[in-house]
């Protein structure tokens, strides 16, 4: 018997990432799936989808090398309309599923898409832990400050005093501040965009995908049906771009200050970027020694078998 029992992973074809030099140039349309989005007309999520398609084509990515993972919500339907490998999982659980997939195959570009209810509400525990791990993941949150799919209840980012179906006399809790939460949790890339600024959004998304480490892109993505307060107009009157105001994304305390800016003026753009922190994959001892788990042979060599049994003698 040979030393190595199983030469391959038993897969007929091991997923290999297409080298950049062999990429065929793709247009945003190449990232359109056959399924037509079922969002309400003018839902902010349309802008997020087109911007993401633009970003991926601009980066020269191939659909087969991308895995898009979502939870449940209107926004979480996005993978169905985006021509990549996709997973449409459970409400609030997209991040752990994406983490498992990334650890199994770090060669994949893993993008997570979902809503504020999904990520900052039911899934906020996973959010915090995934941020602090700094896996090379890109998390796009379509933040409409409401539960869209379940027809308009308050979410974790609904502002104080706002009346919704579940808060008929107004919200009495302090909303989650996703920017600040990500920053204090150790995020290495934190940005905010707005569906009303699709080109800016695509640029920021491209930067986020390119960033090696966890990146959060919080997108103001108005729910035209259930949020009558935070509308396109409401945002248009308030948003401005950090990069136009000389913001230094390397400066953590400046980013923190900007994270709390809300009201008359609301900042968009890259709040914070730290390229010095190694990713989880770069530190995981198994991945470092063996490379992507998905490409390994299965089964133990005779030597390994003997060594394991020796431990029980």
């Amino acid at each position, binding site marked *: 018997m040979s030393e190595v029992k199983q030469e391959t992973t*038993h897969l007929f074809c091991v997923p290999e990432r297409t080298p950049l030099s062999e990429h065929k140039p793709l247009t945003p349309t190449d990232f359109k799936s056959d399924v037509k989005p079922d969002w309400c007309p003018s839902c902010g999520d349309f802008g997020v989808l087109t911007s993401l398609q633009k970003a991926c084509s601009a980066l020269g990515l191939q659909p087969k090398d991308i*895995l898009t993972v979502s939870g449940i919500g209107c926004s979480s*339907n996005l993978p169905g309309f985006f021509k990549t490998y996709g997973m449409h999982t*459970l409400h609030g659980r997209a991040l752990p599923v994406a983490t*498992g997939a*990334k650890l199994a195959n770090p060669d994949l570009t893993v993008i997570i898409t979902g809503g504020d209810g999904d990520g900052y509400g039911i899934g906020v525990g996973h959010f915090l832990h995934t941020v602090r791990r700094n896996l090379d993941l890109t998390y796009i949150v379509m933040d409409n400050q409401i539960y869209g799919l379940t027809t308009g209840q308050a979410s974790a980012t609904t502002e104080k005093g706002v009346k919704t179906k579940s808060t008929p006399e107004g919200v009495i809790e302090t909303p989650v501040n996703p920017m600040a939460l990500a920053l204090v949790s150790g995020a290495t890339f934190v940005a905010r965009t707005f569906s009303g600024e699709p080109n800016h959004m695509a640029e920021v998304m491209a930067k986020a995908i390119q960033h090696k480490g966890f990146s959060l892109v919080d997108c103001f993505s108005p729910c035209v049906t259930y949020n009558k307060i935070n509308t396109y107009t409401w945002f248009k009157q308030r948003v401005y771009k950090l990069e136009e105001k000389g913001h230094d994304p390397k400066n953590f305390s400046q980013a923190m200050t900007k994270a709390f800016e809300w009201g008359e003026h609301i900042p968009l753009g890259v709040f914070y970027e730290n390229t010095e922190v190694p990713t989880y994959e770069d530190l995981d001892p198994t991945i470092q020694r063996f490379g992507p788990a998905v490409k390994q042979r*299965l089964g133990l060599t005779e030597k390994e078998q003997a060594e394991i049994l020796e431990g029980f003698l």
Partner: protein
Amino acid sequence: MSNAFNLWVGGAAGDGIASCGETFIKICARLGLHAYAYNSYQSVIRGGHVLFQTSVGPEKVWTQSDDCDILIALNQDTIDRESRDARKGVLFNADRFKLEDNSLRPGARSLGLPIFKLSPNPLMQNTVALGALMKLTGLPFETLANLLRETFKKKGEQIQEANVQVAKSGYDYAAQNFPDLGISIPTGSKRRLIMSGNQAYAVGALAAGCKFYSAYPMTPASSIMHYLAPKGPRYGMVFKQAEDEIAALNMAIGAGHAGVRAMTGTSGGGFSLMTEAVGLAAMIEAPVVIVEVQRGGPSTGLPTKTEQGDLFQVLGASQGEYPKIVIAPLTLEDAFYTTAEAFNLAEKYQCPVIILSDLLLSEHQETVDGLDLNVKIDRGVWAKPKENGDEFKRYLDTDTGVSPRAIPGQEGMAYVAGSDEHDEKGELISDVATDPHTRNKMMNKRMRKMEYAARDLKPPILEGPKDAELTLVGWGSSYNMMKRMMTAFNQNGQNRINILPLRTIWPFPWKEVSEVLYRSRKAMIMEANYTAQMARLIRQETGFFIPHRWLKYDGEPFYPGSTYQKIEEVLKA
């Protein structure tokens, strides 16, 4: 009931009870003996009462015993509680503790050791006791000496020899001061492995090529993690401690979906948190293996005590109806081979496979004759691009219900796996108001897989004489006690009992179980819960009502004495 030798080691948590007992059974395993050990402990790091119960002998030892031959008592509490359970004698630190003669059984000896005189360091009292034990049992001192040298290898020769010296002083003291207790244990030449059930699961996963293990600590499943965490970087398995069990299973599903063999492990409480994701795995047809080690419930319950109370939780986990496989291993060997098999089943049928264990099976240690780590690996069916025309149908409706798989990164087969109901391509139909046809087709496709899986799973086997007076039915760790009872009752070729151990739990082997039970003369269920869950499952699936019940939910395992008595009663009834 057998010529085994029984050693108990008792004390407070933190006294080194387990390492003392483990050293003894390891010595026995090396000397060609069979061994079985059960540690009765509590959920405290220091204090409490811990009793490590070992039985060893030249023939297969199936369970722990009702009493012991020698008790090593490491504190006064143990002397007071357990001395009357020692038949031959009690070893203890005579400098610190007192043993009154009237707390001994008639004929048993007080074996006090002057630890301060025998050891420079009173913390080495366990080693002195082990040395004395070698003398009292007649087992070769060199085996202990070698084991001590191995244990302290990293600490250098001086520490190694100091330990051997202390053990020797115990040995010599026993030779000069203790009477011959008439113990002789015939040794053999076959060295055996000694391991726990959780180690068997962990080794099974390594052998099967599991490349991803995620878990959140929870007794009694944590020792799977403790074994795998350091082994991962050696054998190419990524280990991830998750923030909770919800994440643990969802991570494993992500990894399984991305194409690696993935597993998670927990106890009942953690499994409660996982349930929603069990259904996700089934719906997106991602292979994943889950080890659920039951402990005393409900709620936090008895964290360090055994029970078989999660059968219905596992069978009923997650909303809706979906394909799943549940296997409850019976022995350590079975724990190993079941794990290897679970990965094949998960990939062949693209569904969650749950290995249902219990604390006693997972944490007790036993000698194993050998394990074949060269296990069969079957990764199921895989798709090729453009196999069925241009359009890739990940959830293709086939005769077996199994659709050829593709994983992210492969050329030409990008698809979306959805937890919503979807069609063969994976496109959601949940929002299409009227598509009952597709719904039925997809539901039937998924459920059909179980008809084929059922044929792939080992049917239960009736052990013992076919026409016995009583058929004993049980599962999980109860198997060892059932075996012991069968040997005890059927001595000299008698036909008193036979046993039906149930290993395949779901899909339930109703045909085979019916065949046995409807022909049985008398039947009794034996399981560690209050409501006889397995008996109820059997009734649900076969219509057969098992009238006699031997149930236990106090957290301690079944003991041979009371089990024997119960069977006698039922046989007479």
